[in-house]
């Protein structure tokens, strides 16, 4: 399994989608359940809460992006290209990088956003600030995405 470049690349893609997806899943789980609680009291806040709830969802999208990009890079959609073992390992690392960055930042962003939802529940006018606080964590998912993107895109197969 670890002697085939193409298999390693696919593992990389899977890890990126999988771990980042878990991160987002947990994040949105935390925000979503908190938002549902607040909604019971204040249904008018739905629009604002929806935005904050969706914020930790972006890590999953970034993971998906790296996954698709990897599959496209190794030519899986167009019949499959030769991937050297070396290139396979590089892509695997890019996937691990994206996956871990997405996993941790997703979960933690979920916590911050959930706390923000609590604040919005008390005072609807702080929604903008709650969004900004939660977006600060996302920076690190974006850095992960950025480097993974550069690695996947610039590797010579």
């Amino acid at each position: 399994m670890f002697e085939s470049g193409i298999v390693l690349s696919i593992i990389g893609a899977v890890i990126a989608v999988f771990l980042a997806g878990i991160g987002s899943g947990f994040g949105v789980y935390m925000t979503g359940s908190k938002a549902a609680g607040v909604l019971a009291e204040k249904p008018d806040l739905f629009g604002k809460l929806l935005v904050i709830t969706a914020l930790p969802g972006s890590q999953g999208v970034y993971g998906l992006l790296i996954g698709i990009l990897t599959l496209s890079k190794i030519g899986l959609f167009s019949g499959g290209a030769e991937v050297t073992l070396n290139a396979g390992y590089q892509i695997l690392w890019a996937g691990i990088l994206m996956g871990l960055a997405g996993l941790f930042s997703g979960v933690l962003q979920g916590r911050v956003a959930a706390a923000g939802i609590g604040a919005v529940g008390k005072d609807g006018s702080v929604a903008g600030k709650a969004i900004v606080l939660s977006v600060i964590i996302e920076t690190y998912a974006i850095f992960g995405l950025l480097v993974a993107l550069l690695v996947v895109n610039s590797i010579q197969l």
Partner: protein
Amino acid sequence: MAKVELQKVLVTGFRTHYKILMQELHRSGLLEIVDTSDFNDGEVETEEHFGAYNLARIDGAIAFLKPYETVKTQADSMLSGGKLVMSEAEAKARVKSFGAKSADILQEAEEAKESLVRYENEVIKIQKKRAELEPFRLFKMSIEKDYATETTKSWVGAVSKAQQKNLMQELLGESNLVDVDIFAEGEGGICFRVTADRSIVPTVGKKLENLRFEEYDFSMEFSDCYGKKPREVLYAFEKEEAELLEKRAKLEARVKELVVHLDDLRILCDYNAWGKTKNDIQHKMLKTKNLFAFEAWMPKKSFDSFSVWLQNAFVGEVSIEEIQPRENEEEPVLVKNRRGIASFEPITELFALPGAKDIDPTAYLAPFFFVFFGLCLSDVGYGLVLTLVSAYFLLLGQFSRTAKDGLFLLFLCGIGATFGGIFLGGYFGMTAAQAPSFLLNPDFVAGIEGVNPFRGQVIDPMVGQGPILFLGLAMGLGMLQLLSGVFLDFYRQMKNGDYMDAICDPLSWFFLLLMIVFYGASGFVGFLDQEVCKMLTLIAAGILVMTQGRKQKIWLLKPLSGLLGLYNITGYVSDLLSYSRIMALGLATGVIGFAMNLTAGILSSMMPHPAIGVVVAIIVIVFGHSLNFALSLLGAFVHSGRLQFIEFFGKFYEGGGRKFKPFEREKKYLFFQN
């Protein structure tokens, strides 16, 4: 432009003019009346309680009638943001003509609401009773408290279905003085009556217990039905339920008729709310038997015209004078920008309104936000959707100024995204092979690098040097914004008169950052001499070392502090890196769109018939792109905003101002046409 200069004023006058003055102030919304209720004993009159109660009643009636409104009227009101568009005269006339009827309609709505709830509860109660009695439909005896006679005793109840066989064997085998009548069988078990002779009651009772027999007790729910057959009682229930349902339907039909008054109620609600604010304001000021006086904030430039108007309207019996704010009194903030720029005010407000020493950043963040948003969304298709939808509402709808500004922001963002899409070649995530030929660059040949596939495309972010170029562009824009931020800080401090700080901090940093940019660029740009730039950078750093320690009291610590101050350069580096998100988000839109198209293609080729394939492809594409549009829109907005709030505002803006809230007519339901 920007922050409007406000003036605190004191208005005093004879009580006789109070009502008319307040009416005019309320209409014009020029003043924010300061709460000085400490001078007042604050007595609330019964009349006021009545006003608040009435308003709550109207609100209640509107909330009750709203669900009965037809979908069509709701759709119609979308173009006015859910408001009633009319002239002020018309609204006034309607309030006048409706006012007399309103009491009856409010009462009718309240009664209907109460009756509907009552009917609903009764129907539920009957349905529950019916369900309970249903197994006894074929029960031949009447409902009684207990079924004992002089010589026999009966049990009525149920056992689980598995016990049926045992029941027959055990009981009928016992003696011929036992009679068993099974009158209902269901999923849950069987219902039956057992009658036994007095002599064997204890044994039969014990056997029933062993069979886990549950005796039914009619006295719980049906004590008023003793002597009647269950069938008759059920029939009566059914009749009663049908009657209730009919009554409810009739009442609902009547409620639907009441919906015609909904708009009148809404107008009345606004008018009553205004009445309440006008009434409440008197507790915020000083009022004596003959005089009134209040403090207020108003835009300075309106002061002259306002005092002239007061002089003319009240023959000099109401006076106004400029006064100084009290100690520790916070001046409210009113921000006013040109149209277009004003659309970006909500973004500033999302962070915080400018504080006392701040400049209004709206005009400066507007171009950056526009460009960042455009590059983040970067799809011609999505951009056009956003532009067209907001243009449709802008052109055909009637909205308040604030709502129009918000729509115009979306319109601008759509245009930004369209340009971003052209710049980066984003068209619903299509590749050059999928795109229609009129979008393609005529010089483009597949497989050859160097020429971008789409017309007008400058960077192909997925090919060759494209990603690095895009990243460079994002960082470059970031550097430009950071430099602007530092320069604005210089401007702000100069404006506030802190000349020394302005020159030592922001200006020195600006110089250093600019020199670093020049030094970095000197490798590529011919006319910049590398050695000169290097020297200048070192000089700038030297200036910072000299200035950053100026607040240290001990001489020896000054240069040390200066060196430490230079360490702040890392903050600028991390700020700059943050701008790479523009590139990441820009790529994300295109790649996810591409993935949606790909999924649609793969799924449709898997379908057994090409026609089904086309349908599946359309569904996947519509759903997928809607999702990508929503996510990318959210991401582009949130992250473009964040770059303003943290990286840009961090340089020069504190915020924390309190919004100027004029005494005016707040329109919850109405929108006045001129």
